[in-house]
């Protein structure tokens, strides 16, 4: 996929995800992603973070200022009740609907994205696809068997159960921040 295509998909994604109250950023590399994380931590006055594990997460967190923040990467169930922010990497992003796709078979992936009031997801920009069906095909293609738990996430948790008034943040996160990283680990996007 060329840069033009990626830019187009990103723009569609951003528009769609913002329409369902997500916040979307795009950064050059893990160092910039770290800066963005730092800003989020400061703005929201975050002190406890739980994180799932991946290379990209490690690099971006490594670049963030975590001086005032305690980051838990293990025993998440124990720390999840008090965590302000959960951090995870999404496997794919669907432009058409502004949706993140995540193989959430590992318990950690689910805990960080369901319990804390804020969920921050990192995505490799090259993992944008256009349609829902593209995401399903890619998942099928890349894995020997269907993952045990696939999560599609579009915006924060919401309800309209009282008088049809839309309210953001019921059982899941009240805020969803999505950071696209163009050059994870420094390599170029083709």
């Amino acid at each position, binding site marked *: 996929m060329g840069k033009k295509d990626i830019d187009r998909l990103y723009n569609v994604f951003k528009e769609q995800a913002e329409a369902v109250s997500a916040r979307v950023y795009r950064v050059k590399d893990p160092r910039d992603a770290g800066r963005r994380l730092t800003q989020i931590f400061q703005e929201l006055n975050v002190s406890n973070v739980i994180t799932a594990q991946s290379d990209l997460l490690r690099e971006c967190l490594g670049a963030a200022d975590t001086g005032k923040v305690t980051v838990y990467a293990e025993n998440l169930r124990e720390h999840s009740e008090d965590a302000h922010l959960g951090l995870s990497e999404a496997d794919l992003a669907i432009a058409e*609907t502004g949706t993140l796709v995540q193989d959430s078979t590992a318990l950690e992936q689910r805990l960080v994205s369901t319990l804390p009031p804020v969920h921050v997801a990192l995505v490799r920009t090259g993992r944008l696809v256009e349609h*829902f069906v593209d995401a399903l095909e890619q998942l099928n293609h890349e894995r020997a068997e269907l993952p*045990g738990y*696939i*999560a*599609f996430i579009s915006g924060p948790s919401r*309800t309209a*159960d*009282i008088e049809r008034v839309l309210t953001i943040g019921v*059982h899941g996160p009240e805020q969803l921040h999505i950071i696209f990283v163009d050059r994870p680990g420094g390599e170029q996007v083709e």
Partner: protein
Amino acid sequence: MSEKEGLKNNVREALANENLRGALGRFGDAYIGARENAYAGKDFQELRGQIAAIKGAAAQNMEELARRFAESARSRGAKVYRARTAQEARDYIKKLAEEKGVRKIVKSKSMASEEIHLNEYLNQHGMESVETDLGEWILQLSGQKPSHMVMPAIHMTRGEVADVFSEEVKRQLSSDIPELVRVAREQLRKKFLAAEMGISGANIAVAETGTIVIVTNEGNARLTTTLPPVHVAVVGMEKLVEKFADVKPILEALPRSATGQKITSYVTMITGPTPAAYPDGSVRDKELHIILLDNGRTSMQSDPVFKEALQCIRCASCLNVCPVFQLVGGHVYGHIYTGGIGTVLTAFFNGFQKASDIQNLCLGCERCKRYCPGNIDIPRLIRELRRRVVENNGLPGMPKFVLEKVLPNRKLFHNLIKTARAAQKPFQKGAMVRHLPMFLAGLTEGRSLPAIAEKPFRDIVLTGHRPPATGDQTKVGFFAGCLTDFVYPQLGEAVHKVLRHMGMRMTFPVEQTCCGVPAIYMGSRKAAAELARRNIAAFERDGVEHIITACPTCAHALKHQYVELLDTDPGWRKRAEYFAAKVTHFTAFVAEKSDNGELPGLQRGNMRITYHDSCHMKGCLGITEEPRALLSAAGLQLAEMEGSDRCCGFGGSYSIKFPEISRRILDKKLAAIEATGAQMLALDCPGCLLQLSGGLDSRGKALPVKHTAEILAQQIAGSGKS
């Protein structure tokens, strides 16, 4: 109190509930636009064709798919239990909970678990089963039942919710919605963290992979399926599809049709058990139990007509567009599944007797059919339900006499109408009947009735029609229908005048009688079939090239329902098909035969008009552009009203059975008409003409209401301008 009186009382209570009507009305209005936006760029017809094919095939092979699903899910480590009845499902879950020492259960929303009254059962056995969907939790705390399949607590106000929550948390809460939601989050979070078992439903179950798909917005299903070490999914067998690829069209349609969202916040696909944290701190695979619930579904599947209902994806769009549901909400339906499709599902899951009264609530406007993403002909299923109820219980006395003795005997029927005309005289003022004896009181509530005409159209025809002077004299048979024949003969006159202007010769086969729709809607297929045969024979004798009618309800019966009614007799079926092929509604016929939708040789009008799309005109015949083109071409300025295709509330005898519902629907329509500032209301249905002109008259409004045929006829040179 009989079930029937119970239903009437429930309707009265619902209509008196301002909260309910306010919330449902606001949602119903916003829904149409939101849904349309969500479907932008998608081909709804194609999508629902795909869903109908997928779900139809799955219903056909339900047993095989259940077997394959069980096999696939087991190979991924899930335990699958086939429950034939509600009791089997309840017992399995109870026993499992007892074995595991479970006391605390969290539930995410599941219609199937409501259908089997699972909560009550578990609570009776000493377990705490908490609903975690916000709406469901509100209802659980207040001891109420859901009033809508997707928005269960839509009938409650924020103030009522605040009262319910205040009692739960033992302090007075304000009625600020975000605050109430926060309280629910805090309270239910504790429940999630402490729960030993999570119970969910599923929106789709994939046989090929053993996957269940769950669609939510609040995120409660994700917590329910993540935190407790035991997960039980209660899945109705109609949720099965064959292949993983089949989920795509269903997931595209479900949120769009349900709430006007392109996608819900969360879509979860679960294949086999995944790790959970156990109380001892260890993390290992949880137990996943999937209960495939039959409870009436296989008997539905083996029914040649009702198996279509298994194509339902539970989006509730049929409720959202239903003019009756919008007024009365789900509670009057008395069961878990509400609205049109709910009536059919209730018949199979809870018994035919339960459904026999609530099916009466259907107006027959057929709006739901246009919106159903499963492409289910819901009105047809309700008619069939009605037919079977009549088959079992028989018709009540008076309708039975009219349908079986009077209607098939044309002369008796027509003589009775003439007698009724004589009887109405003392109550008549101008062209409207204002007061009727007590027993017909329901008829005039909020609407004046028109008087039965001095001379029916059939008598006028016999005395005075001349063939056209020019043109090719194409022979067109006119089917009047009862309202045109006996109440609005001027419509027949207008049709005749326009056809003559077009150089065509109109004939009126005098042996024609009622189209049979009242019999179809009353559930008397036998009487309807007899009327169909009489009408077909009458027009065959006349040897006409085209058959036209000014009534879309008659046209729908003649064109679409006669073939179905006479299906069992090959000879009659053929005749019905030949007959049906010639039938057109007057307005579509004129548009088709005239120049680019413009009838030549008319004087130009200049009035500002608004046009009402009759349910059967737009919904069943698909005619909506033609009248607008003809009227605009005749110089009239069209000011569109809000919701031009919303029902006027007539529905034939419906306005007699449920006068209060009919009147409320009428009120809404009249307000929309008035807001346009039009000088005239145009329409194409004598039934709507009766309802709307009567409604305007009883409110003292002088706005003229005209059929397209009358407007065109008036503008033919020499008739004076409209």
